[in-house]
């Protein structure tokens, strides 16, 4: 099984290196800043809107903010060392976020890029290589992206090489890769299966004007459709909170269809059948009491209770709805698997009360509609810059 180098200097991935990068190394900041400019080029951002958000994340101002968050008064901060990333195949941009933060922390990185990567991932790799040509060669020597098959010999060797292994891709991937041992001093950063929800205040909806409602739906539609509702943070079930949800739901769905129309998004027949199968299954087990198929692009299900909300993917454009009296009523329905709650129409006090009541037992992000997919340095409950660094205590 051979390794294909997609980025970086070819050679033995696990060989010792004399190269040293610092936390917030200017050569890395310079490189990432150039990459950001490439990704923010209008032609790229138009074709792949998700690369626009990535480019924004990599702007120098953002990078300096991230670096300053890595610094501490009580310890010297250093790179963690060697970091091995195993990002998911199908969310094209995740690998860049994870890698860029780690590079910014000064680590030597190896990223395994899936052979099934396509579209935006290819655009990113092209941009990376174009930028590398003008950057300090230490970047290419210390930052490598490779593609290889499901080869445990290679994964095993990289696992023994690294100080931190970053495993995306859900429970199955985490469990599979964990069978390969790390060095005793190394550890895993895991991103298991997650579920995300949308919560809509019916009172807040009624109080909003049509423009605000439409903007909310545009944000929700981006969150849901960009990754076929299959990213960890894509909202699936919509909880209508505050009572009298029927009319709100009807207006929400009709605006959603308008937005989907305007974007020209389509759902192919195979996906439509997939959604039927899943919707019928939920009806058959008594989890959904009513099914609506207004259009292949939107499937609406009425759940029989908040605890009936499915935690598995049920298709692109499939929206179960459930009603709850208040956000606090939803607290018992949340668990450790739940990642993002995207919200509309709640007061800051309501959201804080909800987050506090959850007590860290579930839900890592509570963000407005339209921000569900926006990656941040704090992700899945981890402070990534702190995960990617190592601390030396110095007392005089």
């Amino acid at each position, binding site marked *: 099984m051979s390794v294909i180098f997609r980025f970086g200097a070819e050679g033995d991935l696990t060989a010792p290196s004399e190269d040293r990068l610092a936390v917030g190394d200017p050569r890395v900041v310079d490189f990432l800043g150039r990459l950001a400019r490439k990704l923010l080029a209008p032609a790229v951002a138009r074709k792949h809107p998700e690369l626009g958000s990535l480019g924004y994340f990599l702007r120098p101002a953002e990078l300096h903010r991230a670096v300053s968050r890595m610094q501490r008064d009580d310890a010297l901060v250093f790179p963690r060392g060697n970091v091995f990333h195993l990002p998911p195949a*199908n969310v094209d941009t995740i690998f860049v976020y994870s890698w860029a933060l780690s590079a910014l922390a000064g680590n030597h990185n190896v990223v395994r890029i899936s052979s099934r990567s396509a579209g935006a991932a290819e655009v990113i790799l092209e941009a990376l290589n174009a930028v590398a040509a003008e950057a300090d060669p230490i970047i290419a020597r210390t930052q490598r992206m490779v593609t290889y098959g499901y080869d445990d010999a290679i994964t095993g060797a990289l696992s023994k090489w690294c100080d931190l292994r970053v495993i995306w891709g859900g429970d199955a991937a985490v469990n599979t890769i964990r069978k390969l041992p790390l060095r005793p001093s190394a550890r895993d950063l895991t991103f298991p299966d997650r579920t995300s929800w949308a919560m809509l205040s019916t009172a807040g909806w009624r109080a909003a004007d049509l423009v605000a409602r439409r903007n909310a739906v545009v944000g929700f539609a981006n969150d849901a459709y960009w990754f076929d509702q299959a990213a960890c943070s894509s909202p699936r079930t919509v909880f209508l909170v505050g009572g009298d949800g029927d009319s709100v739901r009807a207006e929400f769905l009709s605006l959603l269809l308008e937005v989907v129309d305007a974007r020209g998004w389509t759902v192919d027949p195979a996906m439509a059948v997939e959604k039927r199968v899943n919707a019928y299954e939920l009806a058959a087990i008594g989890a959904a009491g009513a099914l609506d198929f207004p259009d292949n692009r939107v499937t609406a299900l009425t759940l029989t209770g908040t605890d009936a909300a499915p935690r598995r993917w049920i298709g692109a454009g499939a929206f179960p709805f459930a009603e709850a009296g208040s956000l606090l009523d939803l607290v018992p329905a949340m668990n450790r698997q739940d990642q993002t709650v995207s919200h509309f129409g709640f007061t800051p006090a309501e959201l804080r009360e909800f987050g506090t009541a959850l007590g860290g037992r579930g839900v890592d992000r509570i963000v407005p509609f339209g921000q569900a997919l926006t990656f941040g340095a704090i992700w899945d409950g981890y402070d990534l810059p702190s995960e990617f660094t190592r601390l030396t205590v110095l007392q005089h």
Partner: protein
Amino acid sequence: MSVFTLSQAAKEEVLLKELSSLTAHHRLNCEPYDRILAASGYQDAASVADLPWLPVRLFKTLELKSIPDDEVFKVLTSSGTTGDVSRIYLDKAAAAEQQRRLAATVQTILGPKRLPMLLVDTKAMLKDRRSFSARGAGVLGMSTFGRDHVWALDGEGLVDLDAIRGFLAKHGDQPFLIFGFTFLVWLHLYEVARDNGLDLSNGILIHSGGWKKLIDQAVSPDEFRARLAGVGLTNVHNYYGMVEQIGTIFLEGPSGGSLYCPDFADVVVRDPETWAELPPGKPGLLEVVSTLPTSYPGHVLLTEDLGVVHGIDDGDWPGKRFSVLGRLPRAEARGCSDTYRSAA
């Protein structure tokens, strides 16, 4: 005796009545099915195309049966490539009826007497009778319509030319039945007959199993017929059927090119955007209906096959005539859950 007798109008009148009462029967006896129909807001059907269809894949994920556990006589499973298999529950009556109707259907072309039968397959495939695969079920189901069976392939799956020659020497001057999967017939019978000058002109071929592998080799259904005719095999009938509607097969007519629906079954081609029925000539997703599924709610099924109706009441036999065009590709989503799948 034929089961291809009813004009489309007459058939739809009968089917609408029988399938509607089957729908009511299954709602009473299969709670998950009743929940699906209730959640979909199903009322009554005014036409066959109005009847509530189930995606065929549901039989892979749900246990759908309309009989108590102690009346389950046979559980059929489909051969799945993805690991999921359909489970079809038959009671004694349904098992007997499906065999009877299948017999009536093939006797339309074979006549009432059992014919000597050449099976283009290997006996080894049947070894494990408990894993009742679709291929095994197909071969076993068909084999009851023949006698003096000879397998054209040996235990290794290689052509047993001596066995075929022996069969032809004994039975080749009288009508005989050949059965096999389309691709196996092409590879292991047509080519062997052509290369060895075998005389198959008294054979009646019944074959099934999809065209994908042949189309990969650039062999169209028309060419398949033409090339078989070249080795004397002119009596050729393709059929389409699935374990989820066991006993119902859609059979190619004598002049070829179209599949026909027996009196107790029909097809509806649906627009995959609007899900409305499409007129002849417009390809879409194929729905199959049959009155045979009495022990499980499989009487109205949306397949994942694409098809087209060519005409109605205008062919070898009355009713709709149609073709299967291929499979709908599986839906694939982007998503976070798929990094690494090895057997570490």
